[in-house]
């Protein structure tokens, strides 16, 4: 891929970044608010999330290039991949909000809803990484208009490397818009803030689950 293609991808990412931020905002905002505070710490968590998101982008780029433009175009009209991603996101967010990793690790025995709002200090670093990676990857393969536009453009690339470079450049264009989110580290982590973040994550999990089911129901009804 030449510089013109890279700059095109970068500009596409920069131009559509606010839409990407708005699309990923419901996932990343409550998740970050419930993490321990501090800009550097939040920056690291955000970096991990974005790395997983890049992995999602690249996975899609590979699929798009392998099957050609058929993938994004075919998926655009069909709901089940969207529904699948929504349901997976719902499951990941609910599991994280309900404190599933902690229970799995055996550090807390109580019901998860009782734990809502408790500091995450007791949560193992590995559990935090799992949530960052899973949510990042799932938002990476979640379809939004800019992502589909980039997918179609990547599918037109001559070889796989070019498609990967295109998506990587597109990703870095969008990342600029995510950087200010590290400022969420400045919000004081009171028990109320943590509780609200987790309740929000639960509500959003319900939303994504509902959307996934509705899409599947629509597919069932309309074929």
């Amino acid at each position, binding site marked *: 891929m030449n510089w013109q293609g890279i700059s095109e991808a970068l500009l596409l990412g920069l131009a559509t970044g606010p839409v990407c931020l*708005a699309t990923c905002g419901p996932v990343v905002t409550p998740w970050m608010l419930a993490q321990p505070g501090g800009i550097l710490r939040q920056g690291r968590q955000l970096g991990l999330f974005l790395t997983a998101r890049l992995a999602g982008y690249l996975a899609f780029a590979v699929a798009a290039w392998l099957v050609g433009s058929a993938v994004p175009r075919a998926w655009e009209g069909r709901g089940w991949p969207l529904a699948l991603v929504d349901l997976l996101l719902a499951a990941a967010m609910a599991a994280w909000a309900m404190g599933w990793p902690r229970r799995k690790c055996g550090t807390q025995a109580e019901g998860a809803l009782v734990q809502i709002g408790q500091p995450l200090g007791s949560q193992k670093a590995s559990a935090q990484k799992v949530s960052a990676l899973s949510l990042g990857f799932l938002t990476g393969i979640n379809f939004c208009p800019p992502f589909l536009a980039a997918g179609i453009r990547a599918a037109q690339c001559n070889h796989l490397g070019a498609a990967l470079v295109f998506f990587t450049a597109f990703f870095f264009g969008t990342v600029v818009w995510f950087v200010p989110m590290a400022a969420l580290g400045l919000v004081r982590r009171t028990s109320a803030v943590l509780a609200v973040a987790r309740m929000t994550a639960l509500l959003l999990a319900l939303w994504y689950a509902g959307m996934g089911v509705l899409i599947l129901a629509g597919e069932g*009804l309309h074929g």
Partner: protein
Amino acid sequence: MASSTMTTNQLVTRGVGRSILLTLPMVLWTLLMFTPGLRQPGAEKHAAAAVTGVFMVGLFYCMMRTGQTYRWRRIFFVALGFLFPVGFIAALVAVRGSMSIPIEHMVSGDTPFCYMVIPMLIVPAALTQTLVFPGSILPTPSNPHSIAAMIGLWLAMTLVLGKGWCAYGCFFGGIEEGFAAIPKRARLRKLNDRYRLIPWAVLLTIVLLSAAIFEPVYCMWLCPFKAVTEFPAVRDVETAIQFGVFVLLFTGLVVVLPFLTKKRTQCGFFCPFGAFQSIFNKINIFDIRFDREKCTDCRVCVVNCPTMAINAEAVGKGEARMSCMKCGACVDGCRKGAAVWHIKGTAVGANPERARLLFLYGAWAMATMFGGSVIAHGISTILHFVLKG
């Protein structure tokens, strides 16, 4: 105050003459607000304007005379809550023939602007210059009530009253306040203090989702009051679910739970706009404080507060939480005069009645202008049906 006396629960009561004198500014304001109504054609409109004017002035007079706030405010607020749907539904049926609105009409801007939308407008507008509610920012020939004008009106009121909007301006909260007033005692008393955080979670959720999918998510999916105003026409599974959610939320949060708890459960445990308004309490000069020297920790204020804005911790700190909507229930109920109206920057208990008066003039002026016109419309609608069928 020479002609003022104190009641057993430390409220300032006044003589008839002084009360009338203090009510005079509100009489003038009410005349200003309702004179246009008297000029409109139709006997029912004249009668409605006159009745509403007397109603609003009468209640303000009672506030001045008795020193009580909550009791009289509640009469206005419940009337507002129950009369708003009457006028609104009648207008909808007259114009459209139904309370339901087809989605294409909604998108084309054929739906009135509601203040509930305001928090959802901010992020999408900032990120993508997109207005996620049908309508125009500036007035157009076909729609003179621009969104900018409505937001400006709301902002001016909010800066003056803070979360007082929720007790004097909201035309929904009166319905649940009415149901909460029916039982003598709460049947459900143990409420988890964390429930009060849910409105913040709902607020964050709708703000984020509205930016993500470019639609006013609360209006489309979560507003309990859609059940008694307008809602998307039921055409498929999705709209049927929407309708079901509206009815379920309305029944649960606005009818059943207020009846069981004697609290405004929708406002205290769900309403995202209430949470949004709470932020403005931080910059508003009026608040409710507790004089620790007089307080006996009897917890009457905790029980009386309709939205869980007061708990033992708040009383201990000497101030109501930021979710306080200044309804006056705690002040009216406090037998020791420990719960007081207060102006920030002044000593607690220095002159609480002055703080109350200053707040009430602003609050009641808004109530008369905003709620009064809604009440007049509702009364006019009822009279129209009674007199003309």
